[in-house]
């Protein structure tokens, strides 16, 4: 039986932030990890917003068609792989500008996503099963906050896996070599283009899975406004996290939690200046960036080939 006669009062904020961090961080987590992988190999993919939306719509559609949300996630990953591959191929052609290609992919990806999304009559698709860690509590809010999507755990695992791959495997070494000094890498016999192709494609797959979370758990519908720039923001978070997968994880949690701040303050009765409260994640990120960057230190961790051809 659930007990929620009085609500949690001020503790509600802590619960909301925790729950929000575990729900809201997932798209940021997957997209930033995917972008981290991409940028470690030396290329930037600004088009992640389009990939996120295509992942979201694909997951929704496939889940609705087949009845299996996991198939939806897989289909989303496949679509993300394809979109990433397109970006990879495109940007490896000489003279194609990476930033422009990314923005063109945002327009193409989101246009395609909205296009297919028009066909959905079903209001909801079968959702991902949740891991319920809060059943010990009799407080409904805690139970709800601790109903966690399996993608959260997968995302954390991916973050640590990527970190391990980058620091301890030869695969990861090749990716980093391609990203830091492609000329030297080629001299060593590494197929830089091939490595980048795989990295960018897999980065796209990860980002699309982040999109699947939006339609298959939170908020769990398909709507054209479902992302609102999360894909683009997650790309910024990679820079914020200085290209470390574990810091990407932390940044995603911070951001996801901050998203819940505005609404939870209002639900407590703190109602003034809600626009500025709702903008607090962005303000926070900017403040942290300004405080921690210095001209000499900013490039610490940045793959050397990023921004160059």
């Amino acid at each position, binding site marked *: 039986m659930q007990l929620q006669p009085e609500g949690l009062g001020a503790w509600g904020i802590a619960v909301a932030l925790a729950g929000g961090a575990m729900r809201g961080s997932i798209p940021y987590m997957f997209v930033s990890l995917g972008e981290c992988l991409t940028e470690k190999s030396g290329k930037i993919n600004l088009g992640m917003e*389009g990939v996120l939306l295509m992942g979201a719509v694909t997951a929704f559609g496939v889940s609705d068609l087949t009845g299996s949300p996991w198939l939806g996630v897989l289909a989303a990953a496949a679509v993300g792989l394809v979109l990433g591959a397109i970006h990879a191929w*495109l940007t490896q*052609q*000489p*003279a*194609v*500008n990476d*930033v*422009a*290609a990314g*923005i*063109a*992919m945002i*327009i*193409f*990806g*989101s*246009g*395609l*996503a*909205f*296009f297919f*999304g*028009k066909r959905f009559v079903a209001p909801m698709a079968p959702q991902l099963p949740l891991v319920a860690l809060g059943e010990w509590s009799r407080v409904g809010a805690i139970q709800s906050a601790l109903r966690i999507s399996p993608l959260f755990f997968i995302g954390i695992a991916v973050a640590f896996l990527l970190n391990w791959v980058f620091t301890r495997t030869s695969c990861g070494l090749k990716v980093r070599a391609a990203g830091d000094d492609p000329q030297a890498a080629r001299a060593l016999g590494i197929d830089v283009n091939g490595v980048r192709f795989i990295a960018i494609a897999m980065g796209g797959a990860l980002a699309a899975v982040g999109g699947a979370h939006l339609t298959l758990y939170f908020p769990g519908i398909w709507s054209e406004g479902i992302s609102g*720039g999360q894909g*683009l*923001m997650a*790309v*910024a978070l990679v*820079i*914020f996290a200085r290209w470390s997968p574990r810091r990407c994880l932390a940044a995603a949690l911070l951001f996801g939690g901050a998203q819940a701040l505005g609404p939870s303050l209002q639900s407590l009765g703190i109602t003034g*200046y809600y*626009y*500025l409260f*709702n*903008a607090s994640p*962005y*303000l926070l*990120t*900017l403040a942290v*960036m*300004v405080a921690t*960057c*210095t*001209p*000499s*230190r*900013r*490039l610490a961790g940045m793959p050397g080939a990023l921004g160059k051809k």
Partner: protein
Amino acid sequence: MTRAETVIVPLGAMLAGMIVFGAFCAALGVNPLLVYASIWKAGFGSWYSWQNTLVRASPLLLCGLCTAIPAGAGIIVIGNEGAVVVGGLGAIASGLATLSLPPFLSLTTMFLSAAVCGGLWIAFSVALQHYRGVSAVISGLLLNYLAIALMNQLIEGPLRDPSSLDNPASYPLTPDHRLSYFSGTHVHHGLTFGLVACVLAWFLVERTTFGFALKICGGNVRAARLSGLPVGRLVVIAGFLGGACAGVAGMVEVAAVHGRANESLNAGYGYVGILVAFLARQSAFGVVLISLLVGGLLASGGMLQRAHGLPDATIAVLQGILFLFILLSDTVYGRFKLPWAQSHEAKPDAAAA
């Protein structure tokens, strides 16, 4: 690259893109030839359509320059949207404060405040990159969101016109304090601002020492510093100029289109401007051409919905396909030898070695 190539290649890219889009339409059961005809008719087929295209292209001219000018100095600016919003807010604030002045003075004040507000907004993020190492891509993006939050807070707060009831907006400008239209058309003078700005930008970059210095900064920062150029100051000024253009786009929205500031200031022109700048290869002349192209595509979007039953997202799909092909076409230059074309670059004379 040869002269023939600069024409053939982009045209070829658009043709290829249109063919792919046609296949897309055919797969949906819609006759591609009819779709092509509609796009042409609605975007470029008559003076009527051209007006529609020009109206939609106007904000893109200025927003494109916001990225194109700093790009010459090597900085990637994507904070255009924030500059538009902030410029619009500056414009309405100064416009309302100068309602008692003659229209010309009032509009000039609006123009200048918008330019300054937008300019400072972008200059700030460029300065953050140069002096503090914060990537302009990040700061631009974050400042966009902050500008929108500020806009909402102001429009629903201190700037609010109580009689604007269900559609929160600022107090309106009086009719004579607005930008007028070209007589006999419904194209407003925002187009003039955009075209003049593009000409000035071209002149600045190609024909002045300042522009030359900018290009050196953009080419090789170290070389620029070694030759004694004040790199920091130059890039910040470039950012300011770009932001001023975007700010003026905001002023145009306020003074020409709406007559007041409301949440439609955040119309997305900034983001499209980034793409326009890149497709135009950061050249002012290219910005004009690409803005017209994008304007025409946007103008034909409605026709696709009404005449062919295609959803509104279709025009975005077309845009995406075309842009990807145009970008891809950048690699084609120099790959194919056209027998009748003359190369501009004189080949180093092998015999002189």
